[in-house]
C-alpha cells in the first residue's frame, strides 16, 4: 500500500494529465481507496495547495477535481500570449474619425453618404481603439445608432474639448473643390 505522500503524488500526476475534472469515483478507483477516504485526502490536499506558495490549486467541480492556476497569477500567465501590436489608423479610419469629430453625434448612414463607401470596418476599428463610441440613437426612421468621439480621442489629439477642433471655413472646402478635376 502506498504512503499518503505517494498517493498525493499519484493524484497530482492524474489530475495534471486529465485536464478536465476527474470524478471522485474515478479518483478513488485509481488510488485504490474508498470514496470517503479519497474525499478526505482531497479536502486535505485542496487546503494545502491553497495555502502553500504554489501556482496551482485544486478546484472541486461537480463532484470532481481539477487543477487550475491561482487567480493572482493571471497577469503573469497573460504574458504567455502572443503580443500583438495594434496598427496605426488607416486613411479610411482617419476619414471616418474626421467626419464623426466635425459632425457628432452622427449616424453610419451619414458617414457613408459623405464617403460614398461602406464604413463598417473603419467604424469598428475606431470603436476598438476607443476613439469613438455609441451615443444613443437618432430619432429618424429605424432609429439608427449615433456615434461621437471619446475622452480618449481628446487625449490623443491633445484637445481640451470638442470646441478645440481646428476651425474649417466653408470656402476652404470650396477651394479644394475648384482645384479638383471634376470628371
Amino acid at each position, binding site marked *: 500500500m502506498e504512503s499518503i505522500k505517494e498517493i498525493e503524488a499519484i493524484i497530482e500526476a492524474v489530475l*495534471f494529465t486529465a485536464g478536465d475534472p476527474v470524478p471522485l469515483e474515478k479518483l478513488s478507483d485509481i488510488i485504490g481507496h474508498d470514496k470517503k477516504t479519497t474525499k478526505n485526502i482531497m479536502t486535505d490536499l485542496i487546503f494545502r495547495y491553497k495555502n502553500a506558495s504554489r501556482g496551482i490549486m485544486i478546484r472541486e467541480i461537480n463532484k470532481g477535481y481539477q487543477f487550475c492556476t491561482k487567480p493572482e497569477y493571471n497577469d503573469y500567465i497573460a504574458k504567455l500570449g502572443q503580443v*500583438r501590436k495594434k496598427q496605426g*489608423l488607416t486613411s479610411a479610419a482617419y*476619414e471616418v474619425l474626421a467626419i464623426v*469629430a466635425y459632425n457628432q453625434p452622427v449616424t453610419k448612414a451619414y458617414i457613408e453618404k*459623405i464617403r460614398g463607401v461602406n464604413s463598417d470596418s473603419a467604424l469598428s476599428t475606431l470603436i476598438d*481603439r476607443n476613439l469613438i463610441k455609441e451615443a444613443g440613437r437618432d430619432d429618424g426612421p429605424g432609429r439608427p445608432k449615433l456615434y461621437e468621439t471619446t475622452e480618449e480621442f481628446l487625449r490623443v489629439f*491633445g484637445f481640451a474639448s470638442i470646441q478645440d477642433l481646428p476651425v*474649417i471655413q466653408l470656402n476652404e*472646402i470650396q477651394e479644394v473643390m475648384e482645384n479638383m478635376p471634376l470628371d
Partner: protein
Amino acid sequence: MSSALTNAYTIKLDNFEGPFDLLFYLVEKNKIDIYDIPIAEITDQYMDYLDAMQKLDLEIASEFLVMAATLLHIKSRMLLPAKETTDEEEEIDPREELILRLVEYKKYKDFSEYLKEQEKDWVLVHYKLPEIIPDLVIAEELDVSAEVLRSCYIRVMSQYKGRMNDVSKKMKRILDREKVSLKAKIREILDIVGRGIKICFSKLYNTAYKSRLEVATGFLAVLEVAKLGRARVEQPKAFGEIYITPRKDR
C-alpha cells in the same frame, strides 16, 4: 545446390530494410569482424538469400540486385592476383568502400535501437494540453495630429461636394439634351413638306401631347420654313387652323 538452399532457409526470410540491412544481418549471424569480411562467403550467402526470395516468388527490390553486382565485382577483384603497384600508389583493398559504408550504416542502426529504448522510457511520461491564452494586444500610441484631422475632413468633404457637383452637372447635360432645338424642328418640317404632304399645324404640334416649348418652337420652325420658301402657310380664320402646303416649284 542443396547446401545453398539449406543456407538460404537458415536466413530468416524477413523484410530487410535494404541491402545493408541484409549484409549486416549476415555479418552478425556469422560473427564476422566487420573490418575483415570474408567477401566470398558473404557474397555466396547474399546470393542464396536472393535465390530463396526468387523461389518464393518474392519481389526483389532493385537495390538488392545492385548490391549483388557490387559484391560479385569485389569478389572477382579479390580473386585476381594483386597488380604490381608503384610506390606512390598503395594497394587499395577492394572491400574498403563497402566496409566503411557498412560501418556507417551500423552506427545509425545502433542509434535507432537506442531511440527505441529511449522511447520505451519516455512513453510513460504524460503531458497536459496547452490552455488557450488570449493574445496580449498592445495598442501603440497613435501618431495623430489635429492638423491631419482637419485636412482629412477638408479632403473628404471636398470629395463629397465634388461628387454632388458632378451629379448636378450630369443632370444639366441630360436636361440640355432634352431641350427643344429649333434646328431639329425645322428639319422635321422640311422632311414632311419635302415629301409633298400638306398638313395641319395642330396635327404636328398640339399642346395635348407636346410640351408648350415644343409647340412654340414648332411654330417658329414653320415660320422659318415659310421664309425659306419651302412651304406656304395659311391661316384662313383668326386663331383658326394653320395649313402648311409644300411648294414643289422651289
